[in-house]
């Protein structure tokens, strides 16, 4: 059982500002359409606001902002709901692409040359014919805020 998971893990692919990223599918609770967002005054700019997901409060994280990209609020987007340490988070991405089966052999460590602002979130890199997919660590994505707020 474990071996199967080790060999070929499923990832949820998504696009943010032209790049393709993925997080382990097991981390994803669901993917939802844009919802009514309540912005939070004075909050960090990566935090878009709060949404109501069937009675639970979800904190929306803009991955564009997190990766220091322009975040145009009019742009269509999707919410990838992941479970964090202290509640649900929504990773706001431009587009959810597909479920990608990734076998272990094709995963490489992230190159040192990767954008330093991004590096802390990157687990590894998956290379395939259509291009590179950056595999992210969702826990790190949600942790970031604490680090950011210190500054």
């Amino acid at each position, binding site marked *: 059982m474990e071996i199967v998971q080790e060999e070929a893990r499923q990832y949820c692919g998504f696009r943010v500002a032209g790049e393709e990223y993925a997080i382990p599918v097991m981390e994803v609770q669901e993917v939802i*359409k*844009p*919802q*009514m*967002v*309540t*912005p*939070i*005054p*004075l*909050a*960090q700019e990566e*935090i*878009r*606001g*709060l*949404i*109501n997901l*069937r*009675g*639970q*409060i979800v*904190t929306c994280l803009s991955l564009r902002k997190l990766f220091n990209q322009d975040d145009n*609020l*009019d*742009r*269509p*987007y999707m919410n990838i709901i992941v479970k*964090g*340490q*202290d*509640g649900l*988070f929504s990773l706001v991405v431009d587009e959810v692409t597909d479920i990608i089966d990734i076998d272990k052999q094709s995963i490489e460590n992230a190159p040192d040359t990767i954008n330093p602002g991004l590096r802390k979130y990157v687990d590894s890199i998956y290379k395939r014919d259509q291009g590179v997919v950056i595999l992210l660590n969702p826990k790190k994505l*949600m942790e970031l*805020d*604490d680090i950011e*707020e210190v500054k």
Partner: protein
Amino acid sequence: MDSSALKNEFLIESFENLSSINEDLTQLEKDPENKDLLNKLYRTVHTMKGSASFLGYKKLQEITHSAENLLDELREEKFLINTDITDTLLETFDICHLILKAIEEQDNEGEVAIEQTKQLLEKLLESQGEVNPSSKPEPEVSSTTQKDVESEDSELSELIFEHRGNSLPETDSAAPTEDSSEEDELSAAALESLKELVGDGKMDASVLNELSPDVKAESAMKVEDDHVQQEVEESEGKVDDQVSGETQTQALSKSAETKPAETPKVNPVIDDNRKSIADSFVRVNVKVLDKIMNIVGELVLNRNQIVQYSNSHSAQELSKLSQQLNIITSELQSEVMSTRMQPIGSILTKFERLVRDFSRENNKKISLKLTGQDTELDKTLIEAIKDPLVHIIRNACDHGLETIEERAQVGKKDEGMIHIKSYNESGQVTVEIVDNGRGLNRDKIAAKAVEKGVISADRVEKMSDSQIFSLIFAPGFSTAEKITNISGRGVGMDVVKTNIEKIGGSVSVSSELGVGTTFKLRIPLTLAIVPALIIKSHQVSFAIPQLNLVELVRLENSEGESALEKIQGSEFLKLRGNLTPVFRLNDLLNLKEVFDKAKSLEEISKDILEEGTTEHLNLEKYTHDDSVLNIAILNAEDRIFGVIVDEILDTEEIVVKPLSNSLKQLSLFGGATIMGDGKVALILDALGFINTVSSSSEAKSAKEEIAVDSLDISGVDHTELQENLLFKLYDGREYAVPLSLVSRLEEISVDSIQMTGNQPIVRYLNAPMPLISLEKTLGLMPDSIIMKSKEMGITDLSCIVMTVQGKNYGVIVKEVLDISIDNVSIDDSAVDREGILGTVFIHDNTISLIDIYAVIEAQNLGGMSAKLKKTREKNQSLAKAKKILVVEDSPMYRKMEVDLLEGIGYEVDVAHHGEEGIEKLKNNNYDLVITDIEMPHLNGFDFAKKVRQELQKDDLTIIALSTRFSEEDKKKGIESGFSYHLEKLKKHEVADLVMNLLNK
């Protein structure tokens, strides 16, 4: 809690304790070195003893006390536990069980005999656990024999039966008749009986373990019937106790169980009764309750949404159903909440022991009085307030109450009292801890606080008593001079405060020196669902917990402008004489940006969301009517402030949802909630809000400052400004008096007014204070309002207490409006009567300024002022055209002084400041100069110096008037060249002095 509820609590707890004691005991025997187990056992017995003594169950207390002593020795490792000890202890707890049963059924301890077991325990204690060392292989016999001997002369005796192997089948056969839910209690008892088998060497431990869960029987039994006894004797073949008296029987074996039915004195419904208490309670993990609570929270939100939807859609059936859903949900919510509710008495009663132990150890007599123990609180909150309460009570015992000698010295009863009152008040539970001890010493606290660096010395002086007292909650503060083992262990009152605040409560202290101290804890009923006010600002909704809300103020049109004072960029609301800081939510939270963000985010969701399935934010273009100001006045830890919002909507029950950790740094939001329309709204946390907006923490109510020097807040050069207190009289018009003369604003109950002659008075600060009806004095209305108040149905009168010449006068007004700080010019052209100084123009209103001196004079009070008036009138003729220069910057005082002097008949010239005075003196000759001290350009001291030195007018009399002056000022004044230095407000002294000087 009424006594029966308390009794039930006690019974449930004690039955539980007993079963755990029995289990632990048997466990302990197998593992005698297990210290933890022994300690646990000791604690459990100790608790039982404590509760029993509290409820006054003497027997239970005595026997548990003996057991406790024995366990204590074991705990101290004086000797190890052995079978004898175990047996005796088990016997002891069986007796406890019987006593408890009796309490449950007859509300008293019954006639259970405890003496012999007690003696046995004591004997064990003396002999270090060896009852009969020689007969160790058969300890059972020896202990029973002992008992037999001792019980010979006891009319009532009580017996523990040991089961032999042959009784086991009977035990088993009895099992089906017992309710399985009693397993806990019973199996413990069964274990005990089996334990004895083991003790007798007839069964080994493994067999016991196998059997114990299935055996449902009680080994303890009291019989009054010889038949029963016989039966037992048959099976026992050994026991020959004589048993009599009215006692209960407990099911033990088939034989024992059938017999009670034949004995008329035994209550046949024992078993049913037992079920009633033990079975009607289910132990539920709090986590399960939490989960249920969460789900109910979801349901409440869903209900809100459905109700809101049905209100906007006219479908009869739907609205009917949603109404039903509404009712059911509310009911469910309150029931679920009630499962989490526990009477606060469950922790309060435990303090009884704390207090008693303390008083014994510390040469103090303290009684603890509890009221309102049945006040209910959420379970988690009860747990959360326990430690803070312990701390406060310890403090009260240790620091609050005096020793017996100290109390005798001050003539108090030698027994100090701590009274814990709990009650429901405005949606919160209030717990008051009142002691009648020495009270808090303001000076000591202040000195300590300064010493500890909690606060600066000059700030202390300005602080009110209650502010000083609340310093004890400051971190790093502890008044304990000596550290005792009870309090002062480095855990200060600040921890109490933080812990109480953590659960959304508050704590305050009040005290009177020598009389006592009162701590007041206010605790929310529950944390999960709270009533909140929904407000909207820039189309963004927020929830404000009702607990923080003091009042709502709505100001329309011009009202807003006049009521808001802008001082160095901060805004203050003048609210009944207080300057309350106010904040504009729109500006503070940058709500325009938030709104824009929400709007663009909504645009995108609108396109994607299917029509009709979800409601939209409906964010229209932001329009807001600026002419109306809505202010929510909030209270965070006695800091009052206002928040200006666009709209005030309704109150709603909201479910508080925590924010993720990354957002917790935003302390101004206490969480989020989901509104009826499905939107997420943030909850404004009043304390976090005020901390965020005023990091300098200076934004506190300006109440104290206002009477002293509200101008310090403003930092504006105030020498030209006049402060007036505006009020309305019963003629409906507005009047003003100088604020400097006002000492307090009071409400006076009509019933408290007494009459001396025609003068109404009240007792105020232990002295009679005359009440003045301005309407009558000024001739505005024919009758005094004070006299007519009863007819008019007024129960309380607003009263401005003014201090004139060291005396208090109460001026009755209809309504105190406001304080104005303005550069006013007094116009006396329209004055038509005595008592009005003139009119001033304040906030576009013409307001009559009251000449309070004239008003008081007109009352003909105390004889003195009247006498003065007469002498002055006499002197008036003597004032032969003398010329006086008045140097005064304040228009009000200038006018008053001029009026006074002109009234006597002098010619008066005025200068608005020292410089002008010098100029006037150069050009004119004056017989006398009266000068103010605090003036712009040239102050009074420098003015006098200049007169003496530059103008060389050494003979000219200079009278300085000031509102307050110290000895130092006086000295400085003499050095500067003042001839006289008088208090400004003592108008008559001034008049007399001037007349004496000039009329010689």
